[in-house]
């Protein structure tokens, strides 16, 4: 059975290789092949899942050791996989949602002449992501970690002819690299501390390590997580990443890749349990991002950017939960899964909308679309209800659990975190309602001249919204189902908790307030959020040109100036630094050498003058030389 694990990765990898090296002759069939192989991977995942369910809770871990990857004295990295419940969850999510989005892309990318390569990249991503979650040691995880980074780079910049896309891709990769620095340093720390970085041995030895070391490792892992999961302070790339095709945003920048940070932290539970300070920082980062994303989401008029903000915020929830320790791990993952469903659904919905609107992304130019694209409206609506936590839908359960857990942390921290999560829930309700209203309600606001913010397809004539083809709507429907029922399914009989508990551990904590009150509070926040949104965008007509808005709005539109800060400090500063260094290299380092050469030349030129052609002056030099010679010899004797 465990020999199947490698196949999980091999199938999409094969797809990537074939599609990318295959050349034009695959243009016709490539997308089918890609989708098929993703589906194959999902199929294998299901088989393994069934097998896993068949076994007892404690021997559900499968391992497969292919070969020793890097054998160096004292440094062993194996090409080995480990499939436990946690990995299983991700495998199903990745390959499942992945497959759906492959299907969706068939329709979405129909008119792109580079569709084959797009599917190649998608397969590459799936393979890398699976490697990430299946690795049994941190170095291999790092392999997958950078692999998904590469895929994300390629897909964000898929429309490379758009400078904005290329820049966004580069930005995403660089910011992630900063996170990767954290990961590699963490691995080095583990190596020096434990002499290994394989999950099992490390977690087994955590007890003996000093808390300082563990905290350091934890913080470095957190840095990595921040990079990949777009958490403050490394969140800036996610917004720009929306330059990529929408399926990419759905799969990579909503459902799967961005949640890798959460996986990393939950996976490293043992380390974090030993480092409470690190955990505290994690929760803080989570809380900050939660609000940050939410606020940004409120102000964006670009539908994808708004959703991106929301993604940031939702992942903030998960990170926060993961930071809570055993109380929260399970719920972090649970929210991750449900979020995978509804956020992917929302993005696909957004994609479908743009598809119908000549790739227009400005929500202020939408309006009243529910009549034109009913399926999109319904699926998007369900996703919307799910995310704001409408009772009974999946978001409701998972988010509620996290809020409870936050309170359960206890002490003032508990109150603060709980408060933040509640507030977040309110803001989520607000901005999602805003998106909903701006897009599907009110009267049509689109003009004949569509802006060119879309891809090359963005042409100037009057957009006539229409429903998307089956290949796009079907996945949306399926995801909508997921977003409706997943939560309940997990929650009934605490299935999910029992499922993951052996891996992540669980402790109930001590909630200062009862679950009922928390739920009630959440509902209140929810209604408030929706209410305000309705008041602002539902009742009165929405201006097509965004009003100047309050200071906070403007700040939020500019991502709270965080990007500007980066630009001024890092980009500009960096440019100056490199320029000055180039100058130094040319004039100082090189100048010294050339200077020496020049001075030798000058000296030579001067000495040359002595050779003035007059025999008598030569005689003089000889005479003087002799005199000196004699004097010197006598002097030698004297001293």
């Amino acid at each position, binding site marked *: 059975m465990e020999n199947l694990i490698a196949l999980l990765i091999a199938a999409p990898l094969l797809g990537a290789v074939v599609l990318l090296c295959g050349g034009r002759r695959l243009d016709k069939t490539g997308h089918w092949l890609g989708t098929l192989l993703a589906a194959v991977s999902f199929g294998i995942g299901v088989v393994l899942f069934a097998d896993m369910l068949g076994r007892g809770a404690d021997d559900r871990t499968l391992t497969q050791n292919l070969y020793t990857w890097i054998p160096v004295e004292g440094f062993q990295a194996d090409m080995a996989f480990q499939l436990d419940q946690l990995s299983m969850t991700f495998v199903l999510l990745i390959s499942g949602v992945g497959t759906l989005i492959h299907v969706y892309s068939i329709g979405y990318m129909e008119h792109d002449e580079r569709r084959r390569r797009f599917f190649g990249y998608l397969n590459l991503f799936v393979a890398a992501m699976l490697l990430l979650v299946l690795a049994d040691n941190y170095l291999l995880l790092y392999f997958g970690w950078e692999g998904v980074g590469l895929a994300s780079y390629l897909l964000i910049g898929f429309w490379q002819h758009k400078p904005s896309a290329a820049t966004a891709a580069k930005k995403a990769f660089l910011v992630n690299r900063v996170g990767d620095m954290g990961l590699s340093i963490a691995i080095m720390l583990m190596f020096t501390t434990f002499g290994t970085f394989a999950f099992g041995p490390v977690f087994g030895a955590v007890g003996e390590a000093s808390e300082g070391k563990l905290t350091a490792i934890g913080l470095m892992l957190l840095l990595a997580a921040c990079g990949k999961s777009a958490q403050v302070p490394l969140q800036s790339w996610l917004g720009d990443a929306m330059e990529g095709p929408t399926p990419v945003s759905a799969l990579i920048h909503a459902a799967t890749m961005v949640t890798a940070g959460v996986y990393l932290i939950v996976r490293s539970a043992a380390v974090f349990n030993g480092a409470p300070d690190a955990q505290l920082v994690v929760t803080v980062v989570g809380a900050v991002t939660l609000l940050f994303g939410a606020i940004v989401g409120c102000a964006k008029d670009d539908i994808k950017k708004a959703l991106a903000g929301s993604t940031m915020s939702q992942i903030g929830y998960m990170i926060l939960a993961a930071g809570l320790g055993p109380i929260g791990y399970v719920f972090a993952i649970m929210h991750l899964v449900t979020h995978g469903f509804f956020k992917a659904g929302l993005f696909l919905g957004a994609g479908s909308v743009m598809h119908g609107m000549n790739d227009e992304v400005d929500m202020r130019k939408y309006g009243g679309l529910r009549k034109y694209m009913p399926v999109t409206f319904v699926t998007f609506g369900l996703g919307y209800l799910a995310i704001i936590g409408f009772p009974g839908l999946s978001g409701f359960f998972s988010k509620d659990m996290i809020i409870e857990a936050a309170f359960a942390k206890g002490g003032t921290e508990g109150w603060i975190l709980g408060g933040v999560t509640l507030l977040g829930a309110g803001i989520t309700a607000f901005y999602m309602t805003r998106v909903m209203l701006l897009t599907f309600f009110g009267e049509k606001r689109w003009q004949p001249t569509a802006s060119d913010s879309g891809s090359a397809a963005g042409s100037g004539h009057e957009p006539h919204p229409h429903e998307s083809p089956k290949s796009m709507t079907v996945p949306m429907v399926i995801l909508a189902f997921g977003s409706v029922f997943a939560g309940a399914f997990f929650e009934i009989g605490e299935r999910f908790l029992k499922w993951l508990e052996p891996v992540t551990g669980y402790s109930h904590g001590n909630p200062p307030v009862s679950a009922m009150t928390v739920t009630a509070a959440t509902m209140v926040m929810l209604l408030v959020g929706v209410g305000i949104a309705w008041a602002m965008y539902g009742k009165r007509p929405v201006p097509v040109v965004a009003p100047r808005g309050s200071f906070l709005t403007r700040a939020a539109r500019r991502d709270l100036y965080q990007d500007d800060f980066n630009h001024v400090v890092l980009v500009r500063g960096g440019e100056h630094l490199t320029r000055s260094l180039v100058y130094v290299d040319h004039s100082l380092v090189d100048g010294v050498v050339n200077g020496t050469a020049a001075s030798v030349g000058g*000296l030579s030129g001067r000495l*040359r003058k002595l050779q003035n052609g007059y025999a008598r*002056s030569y005689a003089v030099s000889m005479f003087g*030389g002799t005199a000196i010679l004699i004097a*010197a*010899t*006598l002097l030698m004797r004297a001293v």
Partner: protein
Amino acid sequence: MSTLTSAHSLWTLAADTPADRIPAPTIEYAQLAPTLIVVGAAVVGILVEAFVPRRSRYYVQVFLALAALASAFAAVVGLAAGGYGSSKAHIAAMGAIAVDGPALFLQGTILLASVVAVFTFAERRLDPAAHGNRVDSFAAQAASVPGSDSEKAAVKAGFTTTEVFPLALFAIAGMLIFPAANDLLTLFVALEVFSLPLYLLCAVARRQRLMSQEAAVKYFLLGAFSSAFLLFGIALLYGYAGSVSYAVIADVVDGTITKIDPALAGTMGNDALLLMGGALILTGLLFKVGAVPFHMWTPDVYQGAPTPVTGFMAAATKVAAFGALLRLLYVVLPGLRWDWRPVMWAVAIVTMLAGAVIAVTQTDVKRLLAYSSVAHAGFILAGVIATSAEGVQSVLFYLLAYSFVTIGAFAVVTLVRDAGGEATHLSKWAGLGRRSPLTAAVFAVFLLAFAGIPLTSGFTGKFAVFSAAAEGGAGALVVIGVLSSAIAAFFYIRVIVLMFFSEPKADGPTVAVPSPLTMTTIAVGVAVTLVLGLAPQYFLDLAGQASTFVR
């Protein structure tokens, strides 16, 4: 010496003694054969000038010279094989001449170098034929004023200065004696014997005769000046030791002399005599090796003299002069080591640096090579200073390597010509590698050898000299030597850049196709350069066995 004192005792006694009491000096003709053969050939050469019809003189002279040199070299080899270089080494000709390892090795080197040099002397294909007569690089009639009718007539008549061959032979003879001289008088005579012909040879260039004559004058005046210093030094040393024999002086210096008469006792105490005398003699020798600050004649003379002569001079003179210097410092003045070593240190350092630095901005190939020869003199001095068997060995080896590279290089210079004769200005050498790759490649090999790049004789020699110096405790000298060879490398490389990397000029010079004579010279030069670079062991052994002086 013994004869002289005995003669002196006679002289102070009554005059009635019959003259036949003076014992005839015993001369070991066999062991002096190399020198005697060359001198004899030179004399015969003069007679040839007198009696052989002009048409055939050239051939006779060339044959005579080559035969003499060859047989002289054979004699040297025979002596060396006979063990005179090592076991049977001794002092011949009543203490005037030493027959020992260094002497034989250097004489062999000089003779070989002279053979290839004579080839270039005899080259007659480079200059365009004048009035149907093939001409070499020497004036038709040195006596006639440049541009005058008499010169034109001489050219028309197809005269050639075949006297250069006997002159060269005389010079060679002097050079053979110079490193072997075992008393100061012989040293002085030998010096003059090889200097005077060289002065004349400098003056007989066919092209650019003004420069040639100027070179001769400068060389002559400065040479005479320096030899006057040398002579005065000899006088002072004689005054100090009461003899000019190396052995005696050495004994006196060491204080190991047995019989001390009162006069000697008086002068022995006076170190000023010794030191000044030594210094003055050193001046004379350093002038010949072209060490700073006695080097200033080299660039002018090297440039003005006919190129074959320059090559001959640059190679053979250095060998002979360094031989004499070695013998003087190792046989006569070892007792003074602590006095002259620091001074020679200074001289070596200044020579290496000045030679390398000034060469950087030279624009004429021959002057460039002149300054490079100055720098090399500095390197060789580093070996001289080692005062050890390794030192001698390294110097002998270096001289062997250096002389062939030099002659080869100057032979190449004779090939690159334009309307005005040899095109020695560097700017004319631009793009030579494009026009005639082979010539340029050969010259590049020589330049690399000068620069001491591995796999050439230059590197082996440099390594030998520097390692000897380092073992002699002159580490700092090695470092400075290394630095100056870095500077030197710069200008050798400049020439290579010029030849290969810059576009050829439209009015650039042509490369004359030489006769087998010059070709042999160049080929031998290249061969020796590479052999000494790749498999130097045999010659190192030779030099090693030859590295002990007889005293």
